[in-house]
C-alpha cells in the first residue's frame, strides 16, 4: 500500500459537495457572531459606546469582564488576551474588544458599525528597526519576543585571515496562507449532567491546542471541553494557532447567549486579522579561503513577531537552525531575534521560519559566487555537507547525503548549462525580454525542532469496528494534504490489508487521542510511525487472543475483527512516540540533533523578464528532492507543486501592504496570488532514500517545497539582468524597476 497512489479518502464527498465544512453544519437556532476590533495600532481602551438605531437588547455582547476563566490564549507564552478590557492596552489594529451575536447575520454587521471605541492613542512600533531601537518600548524590557544564539567554533579570528569576507542583507515580506475556506468556528456551551460542557466545531489544524485554550479560558477540566475538526478548506499553518483565538471567541458568545453561535470570518476580516508569515531581515557575513571554501558564517536573523509571542519563539527556532543551510562550515555564529511590533501577530505558515533564513543564504551564495569569480554551482559543490559532517548545532550527518548528485540532476533536468550559454548570447540583444536560469539547494527539518516531539509525546491508535474494518484514531487533521489517505495506507500496509478496509475516525477530542498538532511536516513521518506500531500491536493482540491465525486473508482478518468486537466490546490499540536514544538536544545551548532527519532538495527556475513592464514570467521549474520513501506519489507531487506555486507567489507577487499597522490590500483583488496562467510547468522528481525513522522509510514533505522557489527565481533574475540589488522578496515589478534604475542611474 505504501508507494501506491491510493485515491483520496474524502475526495468523493468533496467532489460531490456532500463534505460538511464548519459553516455547513446544521445547527437550528444558531446565532451569528462578529468581532469588534480596535482599528488603531496602540492605545488605551477608555470606553465602548453602543450607537443608536440598533436593538441592542436583542444582542449578546461579550467583553473582557465576562470571561469566566483566564483571559489569555494558551500558547508557547501566555501573553495574548482574548479580549481587551476597559483601561487595558491595545497593542495592534485588529485587537478584539467586543463580541456580538444576533440571529440576523446582516444586522450584526450593521451593529458592529454602530459601536464606537474610545481609545487614547499611544505611539506605535510598526517595523523591525523601530522595535530594535526601542522607539518606543512596547514589550518586556527589550522588545524581544525571543532570542536564540547558536555557536560552533569561533568565527572572530577568521575574518582577518580569510582571503574573502562577503556581507549581505536580505529581506522577506509577510505572506498570507490564502486557504480557500476562511477561519470558521461553531460552538455550543450547555450543561450536561449538571456540568458545563463546551463544544467547538471548527476549521482547525490542532484540536488539542484549541482544547487547551478553551480549558484555560473557561477554567474547566479536560472532560468538559470537546473540540471537533470539521472538513477543512486548506490551512497551510494559518489554522494552527489562530483557532485558539476565534474558537475561544465563539465559545464565549455561545456560553453567554446559551445558544449555538457561528463565528465565520469573511475574506476581508480573515486577511486583516489572522496570522501571516513573519517578515524578516537577515544580515550575513561569510569568510572564504582563496579556493572558495567556506570558513566562517555569521547570521543576524530577525523576525517581525507582531504584538504577541504566539508561535514566534518556535518559528524563530526553525529559522535559526536552517540559517546555515546545507553547507559545511567550521565556525558559525547565529544570532536570532523575534521582535515585537504593534501589528497583528504573524504565526505558522508552511516553512515556519526556514523560507526566510534559507532565502537569505541561498541568495547570498550566488552573490558570493559572483564576488569570488566562481561558478555558483561549483561554489556550492565545494561546500556541501556530507555524511560525517557537523551542522551548526553540532548535529552529525548520519545518512549517505549526496547533495551534489541532487543538484546535478535538477540542473540537467532544466538544461542549466545550455540555457546559461544561450541566454549569454541572446540577452545582450535589443529586445525587451531577458532570460535567466537559477537554482537553490536547501533542506527542511522533519518534525518538531529540538525536544518538541518529546514534549508532546504523541499518542495515536487503531480501532476495530463492528463491521470488521479498521479506523485510525489520531487528532491529526485533513486540510487537503492527504492525511486521511496516507494514514490509511500506512495502517493497511502494516496489517497487510487493502486500503479500502481502513478509514479515519472523526477527529473529535472525545474520541481520538492527542497525536499532536498537524504541523511541521510531521504527520506522515512521526504520527505515521506511531500508527505503524499501533497497527502491528493490534494484529498481535488479535493473534494472541486467538481471534486471528496467521497467515490470513483480508476476509479472514475482517471476520476476526467482527468476532473480537462482538466478544470484547471495544477493540483499540495505541502507540506512543518515544525519543530514539541516538537523538539528543539541549534547549539551553541549542546544541544537538535539531531534527531527527531532514528532507533535501534542489530547485531550479527559468525566468523571462520583460524590461518594458518589469513583469517576470517563470518559464520553467524543476523540483528535485530526496524525501525518504514516498507514501503516495500523486499526493506527494501535489504537495510539491502547490508549495512551489506558493513559493513563487511569495517570491514575485504576494505582498501584504500595511498602513498604520493595518493590512490595506485585504481582498483577493489586491493581494496577488498566482493563477494557473502565471505559473510554469513544474517538473517534480523524487529521489527515494528510505529513512529508518518514518513509516516504510518516509520523511516529511509538506513544508519543503516552500523553501526553495523564491531564492531559485531571484537567482535566475540575477542571471537574466546582471548584478542588481536583488535582496528582497517579493520582487514585484515596481521593486524590480527601482532596482534596475539604481544601476542605470549609477
Amino acid at each position, binding site marked *: 500500500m505504501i508507494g501506491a497512489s491510493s485515491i483520496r479518502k474524502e475526495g468523493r464527498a468533496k467532489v460531490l459537495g456532500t463534505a460538511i465544512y464548519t459553516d455547513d453544519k446544521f445547527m437550528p437556532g444558531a446565532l451569528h457572531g462578529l468581532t469588534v476590533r480596535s482599528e488603531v495600532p496602540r492605545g488605551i481602551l477608555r470606553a465602548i459606546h453602543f450607537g443608536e438605531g440598533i436593538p441592542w437588547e436583542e444582542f449578546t455582547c461579550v467583553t473582557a469582564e465576562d470571561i469566566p476563566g483566564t483571559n489569555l490564549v494558551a500558547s508557547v507564552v501566555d501573553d495574548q488576551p482574548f479580549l481587551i478590557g476597559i483601561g487595558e492596552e491595545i497593542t495592534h489594529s485588529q485587537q478584539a474588544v467586543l463580541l456580538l451575536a444576533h440571529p440576523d447575520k446582516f444586522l450584526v454587521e450593521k451593529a458592529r458599525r454602530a459601536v464606537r471605541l474610545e481609545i487614547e492613542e499611544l505611539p506605535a512600533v510598526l517595523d523591525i528597526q523601530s522595535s530594535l531601537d526601542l522607539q518606543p518600548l512596547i514589550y518586556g524590557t527589550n522588545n524581544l519576543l525571543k532570542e536564540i544564539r547558536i555557536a560552533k567554533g569561533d568565527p572572530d579570528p577568521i575574518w582577518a585571515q580569510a582571503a574573502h569576507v562577503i556581507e549581505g542583507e536580505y529581506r522577506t515580506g509577510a505572506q498570507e496562507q490564502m486557504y480557500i475556506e476562511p477561519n470558521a468556528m461553531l460552538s455550543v456551551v450547555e450543561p450536561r449532567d449538571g456540568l458545563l460542557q463546551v463544544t467547538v466545531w471548527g476549521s482547525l489544524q490542532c484540536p488539542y491546542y484549541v482544547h487547551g485554550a478553551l480549558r484555560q479560558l473557561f477554567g474547566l477540566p479536560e472532560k468538559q471541553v470537546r473540540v471537533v475538526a470539521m472538513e477543512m478548506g486548506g490551512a497551510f499553518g494559518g489554522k494552527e494557532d489562530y483557532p485558539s483565538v476565534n474558537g475561544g471567541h465563539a465559545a464565549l458568545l455561545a456560553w453567554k447567549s446559551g445558544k449555538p453561535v457561528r463565528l465565520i470570518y469573511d475574506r476581508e476580516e480573515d486577511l486583516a486579522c489572522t496570522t501571516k508569515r513573519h517578515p524578516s531581515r537577515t544580515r550575513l557575513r561569510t569568510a572564504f579561503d582563496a579556493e572558495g571554501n567556506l570558513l566562517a558564517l555569521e547570521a543576524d536573523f530577525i523576525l517581525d513577531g507582531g504584538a504577541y509571542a504566539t508561535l514566534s519563539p518556535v518559528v524563530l527556532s526553525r529559522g535559526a537552525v536552517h540559517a546555515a543551510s546545507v553547507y559545511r562550515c567550521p565556525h558559525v555564529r547565529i544570532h536570532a531575534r523575534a521582535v515585537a511590533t504593534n501589528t497583528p501577530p504573524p504565526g505558522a505558515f508552511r516553512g515556519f521560519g526556514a523560507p526566510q533564513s534559507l532565502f537569505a543564504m541561498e541568495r547570498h551564495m550566488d552573490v558570493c559566487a559572483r564576488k569570488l569569480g566562481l561558478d555558483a554551482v561549483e561554489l556550492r559543490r565545494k561546500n556541501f555537507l556530507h555524511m560525517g559532517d557537523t551542522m551548526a548545532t553540532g548535529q552529525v550527518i548520519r545518512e549517505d547525503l549526496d547533495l551534489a548528485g541532487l543538484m546535478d540532476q535538477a540542473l540537467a533536468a532544466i538544461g542549466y548549462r545550455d540555457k546559461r550559454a544561450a541566454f549569454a548570447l541572446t540577452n545582450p540583444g535589443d529586445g525587451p525580454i531577458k532570460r535567466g536560469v537559477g537554482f537553490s539547494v536547501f533542506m527542511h527539518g522533519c518534525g518538531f525542532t529540538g525536544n518538541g516531539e518529546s514534549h508532546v509525546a504523541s499518542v495515536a491508535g487503531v480501532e476495530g469496528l463492528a463491521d470488521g474494518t479498521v479506523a485510525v484514531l489520531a487528532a491529526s487533521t485533513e486540510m487537503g494534504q492527504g492525511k486521511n489517505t496516507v494514514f490509511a495506507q500506512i495502517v493497511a500496509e502494516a496489517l497487510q490489508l487493502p486500503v479500502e478496509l481502513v478509514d479515519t475516525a472523526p477527529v473529535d477530542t472525545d474520541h481520538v487521542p492527542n497525536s499532536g498538532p498537524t504541523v511541521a511536516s510531521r504527520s506522515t513521518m512521526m504520527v505515521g510511525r506511531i500508527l505503524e506500531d499501533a497497527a502491528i500491536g493490534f494484529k498481535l493482540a488479535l493473534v494472541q487472543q486467538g481471534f486471528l491465525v496467521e497467515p490470513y486473508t483480508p476476509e479472514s482478518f475482517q471476520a476476526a475483527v467482527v468476532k473480537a468486537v462482538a466478544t470484547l466490546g471495544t477493540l483499540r490499540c495505541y502507540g506512543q512516540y518515544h525519543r530514539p536514544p541516538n537523538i539528543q538536544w539541549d534547549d539551553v545551548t541549542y546544541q544537538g540533533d535539531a531534527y531527527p532527519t531532514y528532507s533535501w532538495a534542489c530547485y531550479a527556475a527559468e525566468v523571462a523578464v520583460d524590461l518594458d*513592464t*518589469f513583469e517576470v*514570467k517563470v518559464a520553467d521549474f524543476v523540483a528535485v528532492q530526496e524525501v525518504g520513501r514516498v507514501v503516495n506519489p500523486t499526493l506527494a507531487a501535489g504537495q510539491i507543486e502547490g508549495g512551489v506555486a506558493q513559493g513563487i507567489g511569495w517570491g514575485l507577487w504576494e505582498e501584504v501592504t500595511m498602513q498604520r499597522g493595518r493590512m490595506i490590500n485585504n481582498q483577493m483583488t489586491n493581494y496577488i496570488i498566482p493563477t494557473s496562467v502565471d505559473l510554469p510547468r513544474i517538473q517534480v522528481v523524487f529521489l527515494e532514500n528510505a529513512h529508518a525513522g518514518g513509516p516504510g522509510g518516509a520523511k516529511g514533505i509538506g513544508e519543503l517545497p516552500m523553501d526553495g522557489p523564491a531564492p531559485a527565481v531571484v537567482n535566475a533574475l540575477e542571471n537574466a539582468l546582471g548584478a542588481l540589488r536583488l535582496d528582497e522578496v517579493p520582487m514585484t515589478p515596481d521593486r524590480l524597476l527601482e532596482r534596475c534604475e539604481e544601476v542605470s542611474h549609477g
Partner: protein
Amino acid sequence: MRGYLPDFDVRVPASLGEALELMAQAPGSYTPLAGGTDLMVVYNAGRLKPTHFLDLSRLAELRGTEEDATSLRFGALTTFTELRECRAVHQHFPNLVKSARATGALAIQNRGTLAGNIANASPAADTPPSLLAYGAELALVSPRGLRRVAYDQFHQGYKRLDMAADELLARIIVPKPLGRGFHYFRKVGTRQAQAISKTCLAAYARIEDGCVAELRIGLGSVAPAPVRARNAEAALLGKPLASLPVAAAREALLADMSPIDDIRATAHYRSVVTRNLLGQMLRELANA
C-alpha cells in the same frame, strides 16, 4: 456579506419607457444596475451607500448588436462574453476582443456589460482604452429623446460623466476602420489573469503611403478617467513609419498622463511602463 439588504431598494422596470419615467420622476435618486459586477463587490464589502437601484438587466431594448456598412452598434447590456464571441467584433475591433478577455474572470465576463464598464467610470476599466482608440460614440436616452456624444468627451474627471440625471446609456457606436489598419492593445495587470490594470494602452492607426494617416491612443489607469493620448498622437500623426519620432512621442506622452500611487502600483511605475508600452507599440507599428 457586509451590506445590510433591508437598507436597499431595487426597482425592476418592465420596459425602457418605464425606466426612463421612474428616473424622470426622481432625478438622481436611482442608480442603474445591470450586470452588478462592480456594485456587488462594494455591497459585499459593506461600502455601498444605501440607495434606490434600477435593475436594467431585463430591458430587451438595451440588448443586441446591430451592424451596418459603417459601424457596429452595441446595446448597453452587451456583455464581455458577447463581445468576445461576436464575429464582427473579431473582424473589425480586435482590441475590443482583447479588452473583453482581459476583464475579470469568465463569470464576470458573462454578467458584466459594456455600458456598465463605461458608466462605472473606473479609470482602470479594460474596454474604455479600446473604445477611445476606435473613436466610439455613445447614444444616451432620456424622456427628452436621444443624444449622441463622442466617447472621448464623455469622461470629465474622476467619476464625472457627461450624463444627465435622467439619462441612460443606450448604445455604444463604433465606426468600422477603413483601409490598412494597425491595432495594438496591452494591459499590464497585477498578474496575467483576473487582475486589475496598472496601466493599459490601446491604439488604432491607419496607414497610408507609409505614413501614419490616422491615430488614436487610449490609456487606462494613468489618469482620473480613461483618456486619449492626444499629445503623443500629435507627435506621431503624418510621420513616416520608417522614421517614427519615438523619443518625442514618449516625451509627449508624459503630458497625457497624471498617474498616482495606489495599492497596485506607483505613479513612477505607471509613467515608465506606459511610455515603454508606447515604445513597444511603435516598434510594432514600424514593422506593420
